[in-house]
């Protein structure tokens, strides 16, 4: 049985109204649903935390020796560094290193092990001290995350809006030249390696437009006012942001197009056409809203990953963001920074996922919040 426009609207509106009402069984079910989802998210975060903690200790090499290969470095220095980093403590009870089981350590106070010290500090908001920079990880990440978000958010928004529009148009004008060229463009854009496109961009951008190839600001410039600073950052921001936008654009356009095609094959679209609605009205009132659902999933997931930074991009443009911090930390065996960064990404992605779950119950009445 297919739904006509009016009935369709009534069903959607009704479901929405019921969901939002503050009376009745639906609300208790909803609250329980939200609580269950939040609890599940917290549990997931904790499990990922544990996995990360042990994962970083599998990396070969001794972090106490980070950067100290030169034998002019005395063994006492390495030992002093080991104690300073808290690496002399057992990882967890009975285990000195990753695999080294020592029976003598089973009797050790479990709260004096690296794992529990780490978790305890987390609750205090202390993400540890960077082995390499010797200052709080939280400070490092705070600086870097801001830069990453500045870089990626603009590109994300641009790609989402343009990608959705292009996908919508391509899906509607299926099998026309417009559709084919849009498809080719987005497939190409999506499959371009980010670092390669980045290099191409800065080569063209610097020789043709004199845009800077490196960093977030021009060193040595003193800004007379905020406007000048904004302008300088914008010049540095343009090329990497455009690179990222192009790659994302391809992805969003293709997903949107596929989604639109599926929606347009539904019966209620045929009904809407039969009732004499204009193409624009059909697209806007029916196709767009329903086709956006998979896009919402993709968008929220991508936004969740935004804080992990685009590693390739930041490396190519020396943009001081989280991605670059992760690369540097891996090279320097800087566990605390890696753990901190991964924790932030985990929380961000899981939170985005949670948001998506909850949002879906509002957007899609077929999903019940029980």
């Amino acid at each position, binding site marked *: 049985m297919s739904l006509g426009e009016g009935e369709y609207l009534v069903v959607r509106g009704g479901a929405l109204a019921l969901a939002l009402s503050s009376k009745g069984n639906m609300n208790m079910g909803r609250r329980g649903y939200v609580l269950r989802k939040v609890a599940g998210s917290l549990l997931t975060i904790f499990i990922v935390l544990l996995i990360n903690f042990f994962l970083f200790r599998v990396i070969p090499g*001794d972090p106490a020796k980070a*950067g100290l290969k030169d034998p002019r470095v*005395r063994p006492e220095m390495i030992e002093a560094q080991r104690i300073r980093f808290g690496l002399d403590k057992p990882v967890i009870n009975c285990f000195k290193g990753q695999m080294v089981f020592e029976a003598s350590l089973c009797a050790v106070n479990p709260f004096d092990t690296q794992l529990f010290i780490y978790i305890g500090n987390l609750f205090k908001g202390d993400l540890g001290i960077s082995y390499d920079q010797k200052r709080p990880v939280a400070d490092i990440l705070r600086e870097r995350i801001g830069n990453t978000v500045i870089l990626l958010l603009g590109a994300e928004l641009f790609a989402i809006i343009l990608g959705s529009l292009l996908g919508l148009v391509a899906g509607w004008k299926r099998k026309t030249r417009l559709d084919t060229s849009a498809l080719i463009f987005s497939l190409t854009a999506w499959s371009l390696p980010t670092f390669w496109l980045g290099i191409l961009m800065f080569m063209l951008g610097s020789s043709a437009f004199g845009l800077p190839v*490196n*960093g977030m600001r021009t060193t040595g*410039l003193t800004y007379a006012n905020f406007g000048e600073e904004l302008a300088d950052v914008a010049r540095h921001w343009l090329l990497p942001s455009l690179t990222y936008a192009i790659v994302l654009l391809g992805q969003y356009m293709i997903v949107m197009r596929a989604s639109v095609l599926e929606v347009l094959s539904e019966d209620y679209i045929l009904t809407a056409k039969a009732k004499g609605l204009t193409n624009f009205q059909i697209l806007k009132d029916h196709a767009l809203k329903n086709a956006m659902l998979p896009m919402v999933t993709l968008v929220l997931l991508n936004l969740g990953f935004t804080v992990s930074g685009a590693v390739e991009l930041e490396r190519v443009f020396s943009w001081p963001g989280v991605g670059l911090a992760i690369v540097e930390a891996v090279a320097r065996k800087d566990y605390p920074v890696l753990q901190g960064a991964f924790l932030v990404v985990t929380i961000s992605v899981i939170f985005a996922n949670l948001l998506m779950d909850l949002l879906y119950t509002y957007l899609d009445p077929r999903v019940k919040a029980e």
Partner: protein
Amino acid sequence: MSTRKWYLTLVLALALIVSACGPAQTPAPTQPPAPQATQPPPRTEPPPATPEPAILRIGWSGAPDSLNPAAGLLSEAYTIYELTYDTLIGLDLSGKYYPELAESWEVSDDGTVWTFHLREGVKFHDGTDFTAEDMAFTIQFYKDHEEFPYLNTYTLNFEKVEATDDSTLVITLGAPIGNMESQVLFLYALPKHVWEGIAFDEAIKFENLEMIGTGPFKVVNYVRDQSIELAANTDHYLNPPKIDRVIFQTYESSDALVQALREGQADLITDVPQTTIASLKQEANITVQVGGSRSLRDIIFNVVPDDKCPAEGGVCSGHPAIKDKVVRQALAHATDKQQIIDVALLGLGTPGLSLVPRSLGDWFNSELEDYAYDVDLANKMLDDAGYKDTDGDGVREMPDGSQPLQFRFLIPSDIVTGAREGDLLKAMWAEVGVAIDVQVLEPDTVTAACCPAFDYDVLLWGWGADPDPAWLLDVLRTDNIDNGFSETGYSNPVYDQLFVDQSTAVDHEARKAIIWEMQKIALEDVPYIIPYYQNNVMAYRSDKFTGYVYVEGGLLSLDDPLSLSNVEPVR
């Protein structure tokens, strides 16, 4: 929402995005002004009072790890220390010592008491006077802290240091040494009033962001891992710079580094990828300078004798054939050093010979004769020694037929050309019936296998030498087998005695003779094969700045204080 509202929101959002994406007007970075194409002024006017500041932008791919001279480990950190701090004695680009903070110095007859007469009127960057008291404090500071990775090792011979008056410093040694200049070369003069208040345990953690020193440049801005900006110290007593500022910018991507030079966003780059050199040389405004360095590549053989295997951590699993000198010498004959340089380095290196690099001046034993590349001779040597290929698989076996000459060859992954060199050696040594299993591993993993475990057959690695050869020659001493400094496990009492002799030889010629003898022994016993000495390559915009100092045959270091204080804008 109604149709109109939807539409409006969409358009507004798009407008926002587009406006943010649009290129913006920017203030031009401060550069010398371009010549004006206007009418010349009717009267002769005096030149403008304040010209544009001359800023030299240097691009590199690394960054200093610490601004604290006591804690720094990376070469980039030392580049900055050299520019902001002075030492008693300096080293010029042709390898000669010259007076820096000390105007003159002399040593007592028994060689244990060194007296330095310091310059007067030298000031720190914050305006305070530099006196012998600061220098005495500094040296004592480095000496007291055993945890300082490098600077402490230079003070090991010092027994006592004191300032007898404002401009006289006396250092008393435990025993006379022949290389005093090289020991004070890196002891950067710290201001006592800044450092004396720091708690003992905090000294190595002190960030030292202000870097108050006496050098020709002073720090004005530092963003960790991104950039460091130095301003000229025009009051410098010896090398007052001619430019106003120097900015070191970190480029994570070497493509961006080269592009920046091309576009003039950088004036000098100190790391030039080999593959770009040919095309950079063709640019009219770019000069590519290739020169010497103190770095060398070495092939390390595991020759540790069984009775010297370290009790703690020693695995000593080396292949028995490698312990045979004839095998090592044959492999030396089978190594085509020039081919390695041509193929792996694109020609940017000089064939290696002694463990002491050629760039160390007369310490390098130029009378040595290398093992000529001669595959036939190598094959004959191995045949005569009994290593025959009994089963016809192309790989020789031990004389008693027990195991094939199959060696584990480890290469640390941070050597960019390492894999390529491994491939070349594999092919070369296959021609004399020796097979190697090449493995490229994390540097830490290679360290774990190397020393003091000695759990390998052959390694590929390298060294960056000090100006004084003693430090590098120390690596072949028996005493260093247990502490992990010795990579080869080489043990030769004659060599050990010679090392002791050179450390107390005060006369330059006498010391040089001993050091030459040590290199001869090392070449004969071949615990190392030195394929090449690396070149340094730097490139700069010749249309922007001029006056870089480079001495042909010397060390290439265009960012050395002697060079940077001589640079000025092209007019």
